[in-house]
């Protein structure tokens, strides 16, 4: 099963390498990983997406918790949550294509953030699934370059991950 694990950790050099090292050392896979400092600049928040059965995920969370730099973590997929990923895509947009791309962007509630005579650069935010669908709608031949931020997430409602 796909899981989104959110980790609060000390904003220290080497902390990220310990997390990444743990995954490679123990043979856990990482689908995506994002990290940035939080509003408290002594802390970073890391979101990682991994795949495994319940037992594997239990081991992953236990071993993450064991890392001295990790302050707290939550498996967002255990409750209702919001998941977002940012996609930037550069597409060929000539003639009739221009309108077609524009329509797809509107349907997926994206924005065109850069334009020239033959190219649109589009930004879309959403779940990984939505971004996949958008890319599919664009069609392979129009796509010049894709960059995805990796997933970040947050729990719905009252639940917060903080100190």
């Amino acid at each position, binding site marked *: 099963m796909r899981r989104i694990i959110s980790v609060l950790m000390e904003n220290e050099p080497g902390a990220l*390498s310990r997390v990444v090292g743990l995954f490679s050392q123990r043979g856990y896979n990482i689908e995506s990983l994002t990290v940035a400092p939080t509003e408290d600049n002594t802390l970073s928040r890391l979101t990682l997406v991994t795949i495994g059965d319940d037992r594997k995920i239990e081991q992953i969370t236990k071993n993450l918790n064991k890392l001295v730099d990790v302050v707290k973590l939550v498996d967002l997929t255990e409750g209702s949550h919001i998941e977002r990923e940012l996609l930037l895509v550069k597409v060929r947009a000539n003639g009739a294509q221009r309108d077609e791309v524009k329509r797809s962007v509107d349907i997926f509630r994206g924005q065109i953030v850069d334009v020239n005579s033959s190219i649109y650069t589009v930004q879309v935010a959403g779940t990984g699934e939505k971004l996949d669908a958008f890319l599919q709608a664009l069609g392979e031949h129009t796509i010049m370059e894709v960059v995805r931020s990796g997933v970040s997430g947050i729990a719905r409602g009252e639940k917060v991950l903080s100190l």
Partner: protein
Amino acid sequence: MHILPGEEIEETQVELLSGGDMLVRALQDEGVNLLFGYPGGSALHIYDAIFRQKSIKHVLVRHEQGATHAADGYARSTGKVGVVLVTSGPGATNAITGIATACMDSIPMVVISGQVPRDKIGEDAFQETDMVGCSRPVVKHSFLVKNAEDIPEVVRKAFYIARTGRPGPVVIDIPKDVTNPSERFPYRYPEKLRMRSYTPAGKGHGGQIRKAVALLLSARRPVIYAGGGVVQGEGAALLAELARCLNYPVTNTLMGLGAFPGSDKRFLGMLGMHGTFEANTAMHHADVILAVGARFDDRVTNTPGKFCPGAKIIHIDVDPASISKTIIADIPIVGTVAFVLGEMLETLKSTEEQPDQSAIVDWWRQIDDWRERHGLYTAPRYQTDGALIMPQEVIRAVYDMTEGEAFVTSDVGQHQMFAAQYYLFDKPRRWINSGGLGTMGFGLPAALGVKIAHPDKEVVCVTGEGSIQMCIQELSTATQYHLPIKILCLNNQALGMVKQWQEMQYEGRLSNSVYEESLPDFVKLAEAYGHLGVKIERRGELHVKLQEAFAERDRTVFIDVYVDPSEHVYPMQVMPNGSMRDMWLSKTERT
């Protein structure tokens, strides 16, 4: 606050120290009085600071691996943190094997490594290696010290992390310029530590403990399976009380030997790959297993899918990640072994309930029958009338001669298994071996660390002619610091354990497991280092010569015993796909 040389500061009660002096002072404030190490460029400021003080003794080893194993032996035999000091680059990488050894066996250790100056880091400077990076997978935690002011707090944290929770090695990497003697900073050792991200487990969950006691009391075929965590967690006395109060059988892992007295009649011997027939068979048939400070290692469980099919499992461990890792626990309890065992005993004492005595009597009858049939302690399971010396009888003889009281360190191989099987430890911290990593070369330096901690005790390093050559240079350290130990080499003229596997699984193709007449004369070698060498080749002279060697109290004695080179270690679990009870009992006999 950065104070230049000669500059005055107002706050007179705060002392100004250089980074190097701060480090040494912080170690003193942490109660350290012993370092094992080896100097080099990046560590020279620190070495100079050591020269200028008196309370910390530094032991100069002959190879940094030796320093880590010696500190490890010191730590295992005392429960204190072992401390190592090495230089950058090759000094640091030489220490890696010993750090990994300590990590696998959860041994508290702090390793301080010099590093190139801050402005050279990342430039492939002379003797630069990324020590924090190299050691990352084999440490509990590590620090790169960026500023001299941070030294006291880093040292405080490093020791706290190393010895609490599930203990382990911590690396402190210090760039040379951070220890510069001409820059001084205010020194204050932190009294309190605040670490929001590190909270080791303490008390176990009361409800789980009560459930565990109820399950234990309902058992008809119980086994207590105790590991190194009982030794490390100071739980041995409580464990013995629990086992005796319930009259339940106990088996120890290789790491747990001594956690329960080897001479107690409730002791089944070691379990696992070379465990006793009775221990492995009892585990297989158990209905309740109480695992304490043990981690269901693959050398214990054999095939996990076939592990103890009828057993409900209670698992006590300070490390939550050890629980349900390979074998699912029915009742997991995260907490210190001492706390949880203490609570279990209290609960037992306050309940009217009793185990089903007739079931327990039947269970003991069954176990005694297994012991009678193939047990290691009911009859010799090795040849007793041949011409050659059997390795098992050497260990038995040394056990008798030392009255079971010696500290025994070991290397890795057949000799290690014979020592584990035939030297019965009644006390924890007496059996010192690399169980997790299986590091050849561990035994001799570890013995030196033990001897420094226990100068009046007999320390025996059981080794093989293969393993001893991996850290043989430490014979010189034994000379320099006058550390009289016994080295008992079970010389089978081969990498015996490798050869055993080749004979059992590769139709006897001995690929690179023999030395072709190249072995050194160990007697002369020992003498070259200023020690005594004794060679024992004939069966008839074994006891007399051993007696003579052990009568020597003041010198290191290298006892080179030529044993039957064809002997194998049995029992040996059948692999792959075997269960706990599937064992070879001899070259021809299988369960």
